[in-house]
C-alpha cells in the first residue's frame, strides 16, 4: 500500500495554496503548473482505499474502503465524533487546513490518488467542491458572490451567462434576478445556502461535498435544498454528511454508516443502498443507531 504522510509535514514545508472555497479556476497559471487530474469513464466518482486519518497521534478514521457512485447522492451518517466530517473533508484535501491532521492510504479520483505529491490541492478542490453547514456568502453583491471565483481564475467567457446559469442551477435565480447588485448577506439563510451552492457550481466541479447543508435551515428551506440536491445529482456526484436520518433516507441513493470503534476511531460500519440500509440493515449496530438505541 502506498503510504503518504501528507498533512502537516513539518520537514517538507510544501507551499500549499489553500483554497477553501474552491474558487480557483483551472485556467489559472497555478493549476497549469501542476499535473491536471485526468477524467476517466468510471461508475465510481471517487474511492477511499485503506484510508486512515489522524489528528497528531489520534486515529480519527480507520481503514476506510468506500467507493462513491458517480452522479448519485451518497449520505454519510453516524453518531457525533465518528469522523463523518473528517471523512468528507478527506475527499477534497480540506483536512489540510487543520495543522495536526494527516492521512495514510489513498483517495482515488477517477483512478488517480489525489494525495499523490504532485497533485495540486487547489485543482482537487476545484473538481471537488464543498458546501458548508453555515451559509457563508462573501460580503459582496449576489452577482459577485457567483462571479468572483471564476473571475480571479481568469474566466474569459460570458460572465452574465455564467452567473445566471449557476443561479438557475441552484434554484435561486427567480428569487434574486431583480436584485443581483444587493449584498449576498441580505438574503435569508436558505437563500444564502443556495447562493453558496450557485458559487460552488459556477466553478463546474465534478463532485460536491455537503457538510450538514440544511442543519441551520427551517423545514421549508431544508426541503428546497433537498429538492436542489436531487436536481444537482443529475449532473454532479454529491456526498452529504447529515445528522438528520430522515433527510439521508429522503435524499440519498446510497448511505454510509460510520460508527465509533472500540479505540474511539471512526470506522465504516455499513455501506449500502439507502432503501436497504434504512429498512433492513445488515448489521445490528446500524439497526441500533438508526432506530435511536444509541448515538
Amino acid at each position: 500500500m502506498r503510504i503518504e504522510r501528507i498533512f502537516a509535514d513539518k520537514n517538507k514545508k510544501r507551499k500549499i495554496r489553500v483554497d477553501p472555497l474552491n474558487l480557483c479556476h483551472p485556467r489559472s497559471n497555478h493549476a497549469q503548473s501542476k499535473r491536471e487530474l485526468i477524467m476517466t469513464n468510471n461508475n465510481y466518482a471517487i474511492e477511499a482505499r485503506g484510508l486512515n486519518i489522524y489528528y497528531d497521534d489520534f486515529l480519527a478514521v480507520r481503514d476506510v474502503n468506500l467507493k462513491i457512485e458517480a452522479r448519485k447522492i451518497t449520505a454519510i451518517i453516524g453518531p457525533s465524533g465518528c469522523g463523518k466530517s473528517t471523512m468528507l473533508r478527506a475527499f477534497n484535501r480540506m483536512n489540510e487546513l487543520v495543522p495536526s491532521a494527516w492521512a495514510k492510504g489513498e483517495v482515488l479520483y477517477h483512478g488517480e490518488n489525489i494525495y499523490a505529491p504532485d497533485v495540486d490541492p487547489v485543482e482537487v478542490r476545484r473538481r471537488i467542491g464543498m458546501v458548508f453547514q453555515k451559509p457563508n456568502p462573501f460580503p459582496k453583491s449576489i452577482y459577485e458572490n457567483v462571479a468572483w471565483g471564476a473571475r480571479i481564475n481568469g474566466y474569459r467567457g460570458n460572465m452574465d451567462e455564467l452567473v445566471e446559469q449557476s443561479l438557475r442551477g441552484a434554484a435561486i435565480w427567480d428569487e434574486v434576478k431583480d436584485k443581483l447588485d444587493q449584498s449576498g448577506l441580505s438574503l435569508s439563510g436558505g437563500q444564502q445556502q443556495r447562493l453558496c451552492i450557485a458559487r460552488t457550481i459556477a466553478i463546474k466541479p465534478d463532485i460536491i461535498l455537503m457538510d450538514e447543508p440544511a442543519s441551520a435551515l427551517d423545514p421549508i428551506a431544508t426541503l428546497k435544498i433537498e429538492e436542489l440536491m436531487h436536481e444537482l445529482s443529475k449532473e454532479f456526484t454529491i456526498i452529504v454528511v447529515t445528522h438528520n436520518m430522515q433527510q439521508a433516507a429522503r435524499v440519498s441513493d446510497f448511505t454510509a454508516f460510520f460508527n465509533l470503534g472500540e479505540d474511539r476511531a471512526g470506522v465504516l460500519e455499513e455501506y449500502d443502498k439507502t432503501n436497504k440500509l434504512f429498512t433492513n440493515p445488515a448489521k445490528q449496530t446500524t439497526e441500533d443507531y438508526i432506530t435511536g438505541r444509541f448515538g
Partner: protein
Amino acid sequence: MMKTLTPRETFDRQLAELKDQLLVLGSMVEQMTLDAVDALKRRDIEAARNAYAYDQQINAKRFEIESTCITIIATQQPLARDLRLLASVLEVATELERMGDYAKGVARICLLMKDNPPIKPITDLPRMAEITTDMLRRALGAFVAGDAEQAAQIPQDDDAVDDLYNQINRVLLTYMMADPATIDRANYLTWAAHNLERMADRVTNICERTIYIVTGEMKELDRSDDEISKT
C-alpha cells in the same frame, strides 16, 4: 424524583402497548369465531345475533390500532425493524378485521337458516374453528414475540383445516345428490366451512409478516400452489 423515560424507552413502550392492542383484537376475533360457530351448532339465533353485532367492536378496535400506528409513524419516524413492525401491525390488523368478517359471515348463516332443521349434526365445523383459532392464537404470540421459527411452523396446521373442509364438502355433496331439497341448507354449511378455511389462510399471512419483521424478507408461506402443481 420520578424517573423520566428516554425517547427510545417511550417509543418501546408505545410499541409494546400497540402489540398488546393487537393481541386484544386477536382474542376478540377468536371469541367471535367460536361464538358464531357455537351458535350455528346449537341453532341459537340470539347468540348468532350477538356474534353478528360484535363485528362492529372489532372494526372499531382495528381503526383504533391503525390510528395509533399512524400517530407513531408520524411522531417517531421509525426505521428498520421498528418500521417493519409498524407496517406489519397495519397489515395484521387488516387481516384480523377480515377474519372478523368471516366470523360474521358464519353468524349470518345461522340467522339465514332460521328454524330450518340442520341437515346433519354439526361436528366438523367446531373442530375447524378450534384449529383455526388455535393457529391464530399461536400466530399472534409468535408475532408479538418476534419468533420467526414458530411463525414458519404454524401454517403447516392449515393442512388439517383444509382436510376438514374437503371432508365437509364431500359429505354435503352426497346429501345434495341424494336429496336436492337439501341443497339450500347444505350450501349454507359449505359457505360456513369456506369462511373458516379462509380464516386459516389469513393466519398464514400473519406468519409471513412475523418472518418479514425478523428477517426483512418477504416470503410466501402458502403452499397451495405446490398442491396444484402436483395434481
